[in-house]
């Protein structure tokens, strides 16, 4: 069955294949996996923005129960996420979340956080249990504010029994 578009649901748009793997391993651990999905990697953070604006803005307007998570690497550019946020139309901003590694996901592996399977599973555990086993890492801690919003709005979709 496809995602039910008339109930709250989440699409993840990853920048690249590494982010896609993190997202898919996160999704394996999600209770309500039928209301979430991972899209094809966009091919770079500018492509994420481009695809978001050309496709998903229209779709999100059509489907008010749709939430989107954009997975973008900052490549050590601390202002990138802030810039991308300014490009999200104001009326959709509450339903769009921008997350990603401070550099790139490969560095999460190199930093000893485990394989993408491990990292995705730990992220899901943090989301489910509102813990901080991985989110506090220096490569991820800049996501704190977005994660707070995510916990409030998206966690009930992914983990409805909590």
């Amino acid at each position: 069955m496809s995602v039910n578009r008339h109930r709250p649901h989440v699409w993840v748009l990853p920048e690249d294949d590494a982010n896609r793997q993190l997202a898919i391993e996160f999704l394996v651990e999600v209770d309500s996996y039928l209301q979430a999905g991972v899209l094809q990697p966009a091919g770079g953070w500018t492509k994420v923005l481009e695809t978001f604006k050309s496709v998903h803005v229209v779709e999100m307007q059509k489907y008010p129960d749709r939430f989107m998570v954009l997975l973008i690497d900052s490549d050590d550019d601390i202002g990138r996420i802030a810039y991308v946020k300014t490009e999200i139309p104001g009326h959709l901003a509450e339903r769009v979340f921008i997350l990603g590694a401070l550099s790139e996901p490969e560095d999460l592996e190199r930093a000893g956080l485990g394989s993408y399977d491990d990292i995705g599973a730990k992220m899901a555990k943090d989301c489910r249990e509102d813990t901080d086993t991985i989110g506090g890492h220096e490569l991820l801690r800049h996501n704190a504010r977005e994660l707070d919003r995510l916990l409030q709005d998206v966690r009930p979709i992914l983990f409805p029994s909590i």
Partner: protein
Amino acid sequence: MQVQDLGRGRTDVPMRFELDVELGSSTYTYVIAFEIPAGGEELRVLEEKLAINGDLVYTRKMADVRLAKNGRVKEATFPIDSQLVALPIVQQHSIKDPSWEFQQWLARMVILRPVPSLILGGSTKETLRPIPDGTNFAAWFSGLLASAPSAYAKIDEYLKQVLPDLKEIKNPVVGKEARSLSVEFSNKNGSLDLPFENLSDGEKCFMICALVLAANEVYGPLLCFWDEPDNYLAPSEVQHFVMALRRGFRSGGQFIATSHNLEGIRSFSDENTLFLYRKSHLEPTIVRRVAELRKGRNFVGDLSEAMVRGDVEP
């Protein structure tokens, strides 16, 4: 096993299987090799071995089986027909015997390459052993419910998620439609009772998936090998279908799928994806973990795009 199972027609090279299986707290190592004797036309067992947690249970060379000394069991040898596998013959002391557990696991392995158009809803008996093309689906359904009636709840739970208008699956034991599966759908506009054979190919795959998930829970842990589970599905269903199977095997058992479907392949990480590649019919298939291929820069970027370009070379 048959002669035609020998790789690339190489009848001069033995066909060897090695299994390392972790079940509960025990690790099983099982090896078996087949060969064709000179001038012969049928396979025979060349060697065989079973070890549990590194301790030999038995070894076998051709027709000679040697039971290892184990606790009160003395070392012993006995002959066996060279065309018979020794594993089912080696006597277990009880169902608590670890080798019994291993044999059960082997016997319950689920290998699927369903052909939905051939799957009808009738059955004359019950089984816990589905055949790969799925044509004994109804017998498997009956056998599963006979061995654990609670399995229906699990089947129903999954199917109602993916087919929200499903009401129930019927398999009457008496009457004109006895032992013939039908599926009732209903919504506020009414209801529809469909013979199982009239379901779409994709719907039949959902039914099989429900049985796999229930079987793993009821009499698992199972190894389920499904050849192209994403066949017959709509693009919007593939990721969720694979996810259901991956999630169902998280707490026990093992799910292995082959796929050419990009959406199906994208439902796994590099770490748990193997890439199979064969240059020609005369060379062996190379199997490499995608994570290794990426590290070795055998391809760069998105795996599925690299596959479309044909740029993944182990």
